[in-house]
């Protein structure tokens, strides 16, 4: 017995020593040590950029993700003149070349006077399986050219905190675009953006290009400046390293259609046809029903079901009028005047009309969005995206907005839930309870939120007082739309095959076996995953 114990202990010690080398990561507390400022060396960044086989990374994820060709994702924005996709115009500005990467690595080692360079690669553990897989893949490719990689896994909130504090070396992170314009990405990396430019990439050339683009009134010049700026960031300075663009494999029951996916805006589930009772899958629950405080896609999708904005996006991502009957633009393109529909009404849960939607509701909404009390994440939407300087209710149904300069994406961006109208009287009445249940919201959209069981499901039924309702009914739009919260993709797939739900989100592991299934779609999302490199952010 003693012998067995002795053997066990000896083994333990032996094995412990051999396994112990892998878990020393995460020690970035005492920055800036000698080994963490290596990222100021351009060759280190180049070596990283050239080392990653993006095609292979995307392929291994197998969920419809594609290799990034630049920091701007595919199908985000199209050329205002020709209509070409940004990526087609900008081309592929990243490359994979092991030999070059090895050379850069060798040069970097020489310049820094080191035998070996070690990287702490930070990533989130609760941001989806694809992130973990991608981090493992990236680590592997970096090690292939000689880096020693420590994978540092953290929960998302902590990861973001570490990025904010500059307490990291390289982080696999992502950006979800809010609107269909390169600006949503390019703004992230200007030196003055201390919230998002975590690595403190600092290039006067880049800053100037972005500033020029944003100031430009000529759409083509603006476009070309952004192309140049992206090249400066990704292919000249190697400030941040794009890796892949998220996909989304799913199966949609072939009998239903009309789900409109938008890679740069909120998906639209208003026009589902083919079945009266539709049950859709969502892998996260609604976080907040308040359209001005919500920040996540799931909440936004729910809000577009029961709320409406001045415009909405069609299947191709082009805007069309919704709550607005008509609009006028001043000749210089800075003053927009909207006529709100006479038949637009606020409706309560039982379908009764509470009040008409007025211009004042928009004024209240925008005032509330920018107010400090609300601390909304999208407070900047009005000034930075819509470029609106002032807004007013001319009369009960006329809403006037003055922009700081002409804005080509203005109309499309009005379809974003944050700038949808609110009913102030109702909010004041409900107080803290506002938007915490189906009973404490009003609708002005095609559906009414009938019930919400947190963690389980939320259901929509038609709003018969919606002005387009007859068109919807004529088109055969679903009479009941249920969103079921399911986190496990395997049981969800079984439930789909059993016929109880009408869509299912697939994990990368399930794709191969189901890619020939009828109704399989590989949608492309707007999320671009990139390596944020901590160049200058050490305190």
């Amino acid at each position, binding site marked *: 017995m003693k012998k067995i114990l002795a053997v066990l202990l000896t083994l333990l010690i032996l094995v412990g020593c051999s396994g112990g080398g892998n878990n020393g990561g995460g020690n970035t507390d005492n920055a800036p040590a000698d080994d963490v400022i290596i990222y100021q060396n351009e060759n280190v960044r180049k070596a990283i950029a050239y080392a990653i086989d993006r095609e292979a990374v995307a392929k291994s994820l197998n969920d419809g993700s594609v290799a990034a060709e630049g920091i701007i994702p595919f199908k985000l924005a199209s050329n205002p003149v020709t209509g070409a996709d940004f990526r087609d115009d900008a081309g592929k500005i990243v490359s994979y070349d092991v030999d070059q990467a090895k050379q850069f690595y060798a040069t970097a080692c020489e310049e820094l006077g080191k035998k070996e360079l070690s990287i702490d690669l930070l990533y989130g553990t609760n941001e989806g399986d694809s992130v973990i897989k991608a981090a493992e893949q990236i680590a592997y490719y970096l090690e292939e050219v000689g880096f020693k990689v420590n994978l540092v896994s953290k929960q998302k909130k902590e990861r973001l905190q570490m990025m904010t504090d500059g307490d990291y070396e390289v982080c696999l992170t992502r950006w979800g675009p809010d609107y269909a314009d390169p600006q949503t990405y390019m703004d992230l990396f200007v030196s003055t953006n201390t919230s998002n430019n975590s690595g403190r990439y600092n290039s006067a050339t880049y800053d100037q290009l972005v500033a020029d683009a944003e100031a430009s009134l000529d759409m083509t010049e603006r476009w070309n400046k952004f192309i140049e700026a992206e090249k400066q960031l990704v292919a000249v300075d190697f400030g941040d390293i794009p890796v892949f663009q998220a996909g989304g494999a799913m199966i949609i029951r072939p009998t239903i259609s009309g789900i409109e996916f938008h890679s740069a805006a909120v998906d639209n589930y208003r026009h589902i046809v083919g079945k009266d009772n539709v049950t859709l899958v969502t892998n996260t629950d609604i976080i907040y029903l*308040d359209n001005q405080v919500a920040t996540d896609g799931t909440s936004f999708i729910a809000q577009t079901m029961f709320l409406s904005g001045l415009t909405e996006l069609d299947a191709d991502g082009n805007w069309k009028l919704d709550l607005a009957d008509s609009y006028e633009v001043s000749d210089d393109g800075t003053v927009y005047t909207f006529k709100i529909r006479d038949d637009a009404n606020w409706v309560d849960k039982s379908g009764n009309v509470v009040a008409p939607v007025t211009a004042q509701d928009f004024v209240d909404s925008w005032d509330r969005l920018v107010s400090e009390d609300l*601390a909304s994440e999208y407070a900047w939407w009005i000034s930075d995206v819509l470029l609106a300087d002032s807004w007013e209710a001319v009369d009960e149904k006329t809403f006037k907005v003055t922009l700081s300069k002409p804005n080509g994406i203005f109309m499309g961006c009005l379809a974003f839930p944050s700038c949808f109208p609110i009913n102030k009287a109702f909010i004041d009445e409900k107080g803290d309870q506002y938007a915490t249940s189906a009973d404490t919201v009003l609708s002005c959209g095609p559906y009414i939120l009938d019930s919400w*069981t947190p963690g389980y499901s939320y259901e929509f039924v038609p709003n018969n007082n919606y002005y387009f309702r007859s068109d919807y009914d004529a088109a055969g739009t679903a009479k009941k739309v249920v969103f079921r919260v399911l986190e496990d993709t395997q049981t969800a797939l*079984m439930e789909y095959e059993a016929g109880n739900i009408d869509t299912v989100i697939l994990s990368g592991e399930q794709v191969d076996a189901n890619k020939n299934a009828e109704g399989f779609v590989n949608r492309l999302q707007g999320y671009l995953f990139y390596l944020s490199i901590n160049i200058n952010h050490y305190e």
Partner: protein
Amino acid sequence: MKKYILKRVLISLATLFVILLVLFILMDLMPGTPFNDEKLTEAQKALLYAKYGLDKPLITRFFLYAKNMLKGDLGVSYAINKNFAVSEMVKDRLGISLAVGGMAMLIGTILGLILGILAALNHNSWIDNLCSAISVIGVSIPSYVCALLLCYFIAYKLGWLPILYNVEQPFVSLILPAIALSVSPTANIARFTRSEMIDVLNSDYILLVQSKGVKNWKMIFSHVLRNTLIPVITVMGPILVNLLTGSSVIEKIFGIPGIGRLMITAIQENDYNVTIACAFVYSVMYIVVMLFVDILYGVIDPRIRIAKEDK
């Protein structure tokens, strides 16, 4: 006895108070904040901190929280369902979790006792080996693998039961999750019952009973079982609590809006109030179960009662 129970209850309350404090401190140590988000600026974060009173010192927040808790107010959620009253969130989900847990415990206890008793009565025979094998397999395979297998074969292939949880038929759709969850308690109770019962069967007083010529079945029911069950009851408390913790995985697989899953999400989202509330609910359950077991133990086993009253 009354004095003893009162003393135990008071100690339990004090323990709970300390646990609450510990949870508060743990929350404070947790890296990150509920408001970390790519799109939130530092200034906005500070605003939110002030809005929810998180900028106050720890001890002030703790006493405020404890005070509100006595009124039944557990604060609001910061990240999962923003501004939702946590007491509502917990209340709704606790019921479902307790239902699954209760069913699983019932299945586990009955099956476990049957397996354990069969094995002990047929000690060292093939029945014993079979029962032991079943119980060992039960503790050897992770519950999520069992759950998925059950789901695949019983619900998906054979269609006997619903695959996922369904509000409209709560009982039927909770059977499968309860079975999946009961695998490990079954195994644990079976093993424990077996070894306790073998001990009892080999004891001198049973020999005495046998020599007095008491009928076999009567002996088993009135002498062996009673003495076997006493120690079994003591392990059931911790098993029950473990089972509730373990339910988070089952809840995820079967799409059940339960408290286990809520707690995991809350921890990952740094949703302080929800985490504290869920964790505290578990603590309360644990303490209550332990208290109950303790008192029950005294009731069943006269020796314990006397020993405690002597003190």
